[in-house]
């Protein structure tokens, strides 16, 4: 049997499995499937993984038409979605993932939540501006920053403070 080092896609796992002729091959096949399972799990848990992008896209789909809230909301534009996607991609690997939403002005929101009074909400605009507001116990922090392809340091610090137990 042949188990090539370059065979790393799920379809090649099936091929490996079907060609397995010995106990060793079966074991290798099992290990590879386990590895893929762990990889997919880690992607799902990472803020930049498949689940985060899927949820972001779902918000865009649901809110891309004017009046999506039945009360005069502005649409979430493709430009806003692209800015939000780039913002998500720019988060450091392993950063806690946000939940997503939209505001009636058409901005996409990302929220990091550690409790009612440990919350960070970031609004992404179509023109690359981000508005943030955070409650940290009795103190609060809010403001606006340009998004130029890198996560603003203040936002990264607030994510850390909100999500650290």
């Amino acid at each position, binding site marked *: 049997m042949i188990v090539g080092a370059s065979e790393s896609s799920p379809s090649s796992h099936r091929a490996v499995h079907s060609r397995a002729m010995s106990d060793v091959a079966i074991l290798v096949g099992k290990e590879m499937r386990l590895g893929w399972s762990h990889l997919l799990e880690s992607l799902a848990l990472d803020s930049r993984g498949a689940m985060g992008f899927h949820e972001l896209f779902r918000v865009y789909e649901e809110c891309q038409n004017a009046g999506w809230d039945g009360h005069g909301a502005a649409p979430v534009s493709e430009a806003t979605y692209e800015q939000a996607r780039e913002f998500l991609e720019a988060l450091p690997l392993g950063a806690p993932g946000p939940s997503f*939403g939209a505001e009636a002005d058409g901005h996409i929101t990302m929220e990091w939540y550690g409790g009612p009074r440990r919350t960070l909400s970031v609004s992404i605009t179509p023109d690359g501006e981000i*508005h943030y507001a955070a409650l940290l116990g009795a103190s609060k922090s809010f403001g606006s920053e340009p998004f130029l392809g890198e996560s603003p340091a203040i936002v990264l610090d607030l994510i850390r403070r909100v999500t650290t137990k």
Partner: protein
Amino acid sequence: MSESVSMPPVASGEWLARFVFFRNRIRHDGTLKADEFVPFPHTGLSVTRHLRLTEADLWNIGQDIARQRGKPVLARADLQASSFERHRLRVIPAPVDRNANHAEVVGWPPEKSSQKIIAIEIAADAGRVRMMPMESQ
């Protein structure tokens, strides 16, 4: 707005309901995201005064709004007017057809980040939402 209905001013201790139509604004612990309290595109945030209404009346109003908006009402948050007033917002009666208890929270700052920090604090004040009871659906 109906001109024929005159309502008393909103007292600080009065309870106000904010109906919720989006599941992704309700967190897993039953609290609300700030998104629910950002007022755009209207100058005020719509709320319904509890004044002289029963629970059933309140949910009926929620369902009526839901029909107008084409979205199912899922829950409501109850807050006292003082929760808005402490952020220098005002709650003014704004009766509309079929909801004489409608009111608007006005006086929001123009800057988005200032609106957001107020919205987060109001959401924290609101606590857990009341889910729409099955018998009202």
